[in-house]
């Protein structure tokens, strides 16, 4: 059962918009967050997963297509757009947004280092007993998602 509140979702929305404004110097638009009531949210080609423990348990993940991550790297003046750097970036986005959430959640919101899943969406599996919140992200012509699954 998900007990994530609207205020908590707002924390992640703000973290997402701030990430793109600062890192890419180009704001993203964030769609209305929604609760997934059946099944798991779909994922893109690359997913950065952060495990959450401490006062809250679960996971937060950022999932995006390669084209979006490539342009994001280029906006950061990174010329190496290899698969390794794309995976590094998707993990870093997830880590940054999750870490920023501690501004509101506090130090007891303990986050792991990122785990990255690439090219195999089946390996991304939210905890079955938690209903995930999806925050849709649109940036330039690309779509991505931040998924918040917290007990």
């Amino acid at each position, binding site marked *: 059962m998900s007990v994530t509140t609207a205020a908590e979702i707002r924390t992640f929305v703000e973290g997402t918009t*701030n*990430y793109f404004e*600062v*890192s890419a*110097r180009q704001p993203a638009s964030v769609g209305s967050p929604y609760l997934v009531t059946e099944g798991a949210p779909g994922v893109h080609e690359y997913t950065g997963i952060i495990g959450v423990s401490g006062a809250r348990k679960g996971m937060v993940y950022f999932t995006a297509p390669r084209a979006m991550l490539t342009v994001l*790297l280029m906006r*950061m*003046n*990174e010329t*190496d757009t290899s698969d*390794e*750097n794309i995976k*590094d*970036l998707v*993990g*870093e986005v997830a*880590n*940054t*947004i*999750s*870490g*920023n*959430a*501690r*501004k509101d*959640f*506090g*130090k007891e*919101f303990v*986050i*792991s*280092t990122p785990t990255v899943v690439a090219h195999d969406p089946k390996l991304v599996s939210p905890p079955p007993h938690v209903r995930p919140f999806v925050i849709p992200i649109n940036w330039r012509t690309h779509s991505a998602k931040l998924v918040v699954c917290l007990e």
Partner: protein
Amino acid sequence: MSKSNGANGAGGERILRLMIVDDSNIIRRRIERSQQHARLQVVGSAANGREAVELFQKTNPDVVTMDLTMPEMDGIQCVERLVTMKPEILILVVSALADKATAVEAIEKGANGFLCKPFSDRQLNDALAELLKET
């Protein structure tokens, strides 16, 4: 990489050796690319606290940028180790962990500044400039 001490920059000020510690390669490269302080010379980078301690022993840096959430040895533990080895070292923590308690803990362990990710080039350079006022 250089281990030399006492080199001077164009203004006659001593060049300071900078070590970058972050588990993200793109963040390490970004800091190296973006830092524009004339007194700083990058002497190496490390992907976790354990690597940072090893690199510290080889390069004897004066200034460190330090991530906190890293595998093997986290940034807080690493700050403690580096300060023990070189009390005058200047450490700028660069982390996504945005709660005040973490920033306070890092400072109490011996860090000299805290920059929250994500950061702009200007924020990075301002934070480094602030840090170097202590030299």
